[in-house]
């Protein structure tokens, strides 16, 4: 069974990465920014696994699992930040959180 080639999967991966980038740039709710970041990481993961299948090499799948672990830790820290912001009664809006601006 051959099915669609790697280029089709790469098209989906590119669309997912572009959609995630759009969400990160446009949305102001930090939770949705994190969700869009997950979409970007998953686009990269799909490309890695497609190339792993293409090259008959396991390194792509290993790297995809590492990306998954990094995404889990990023969600852990990011949601910790969201909860900390919420506890300090600050607005959950990435445009208003500009205290660290130089």
């Amino acid at each position, binding site marked *: 069974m051959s099915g*669609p080639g790697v280029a089709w999967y790469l098209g989906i991966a590119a669309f997912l*990465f572009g959609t995630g980038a759009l969400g990160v740039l446009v949305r102001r709710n930090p939770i*949705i920014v994190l969700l869009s970041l997950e979409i970007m990481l998953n686009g990269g993961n799909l490309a890695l696994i497609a190339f792993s*299948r293409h090259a008959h090499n396991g*390194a792509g799948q290993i790297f995809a699992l590492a990306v998954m672990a990094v995404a889990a*830790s990023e969600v852990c820290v990011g949601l*910790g930040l969201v909860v900390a912001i919420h*506890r300090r009664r600050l607005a959950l809006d990435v445009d208003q959180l500009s205290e660290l601006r130089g």
Partner: protein
Amino acid sequence: MILASAGNIVVWIVWVGAGFACLASGAAVVSFSNPFYSALALIGNLGSLAVLYLLLSAEFVAAAQVLVYAGAVMVMFLFVIAYVGPRMETPWAGGPSWQSVAAVLAAASIFLEIIVAVALKAGGRLSHSDHVNSTFGTPGWIGRLFLTDHLLAFEITSIVLLVAAVGGVILGSHTQRRSGEEASTS
């Protein structure tokens, strides 16, 4: 021969269904105004991605995707959304500002750049062969790779997870101590 082409058609049908679900739910995550619905759409996105991983004969990664992402990570997301309360935000209201126009242009240029790069550099050569080993993508194969060739990546991943867990705990406890100090000084 007929059986092989029938299997091929089934693969294409599953691919089209999963790919369409993937693209639609990805767009839905970005465009929903309620973060709760966005998180639910992301669960659908991760599930359809797991189907695509299965089509690429990456069984262990598909299972890990469903368990880790659609299970653990999304439960954490839904818990935090329920904790802070759903905040509506209308992303496209009030006409196009220069910020949203620039964001759309940047995202479209990223997408087109990847498509053009794939089409130019590797247009005809990206058709993978039909047959893979029967062990390709199985948990035992992944585990052997992790513990032989990629042992350093495995260990570094565990350190990253530990650091993230410690960071999450510090973020949680620091604000509590700070609010306690403010309460004692006031």
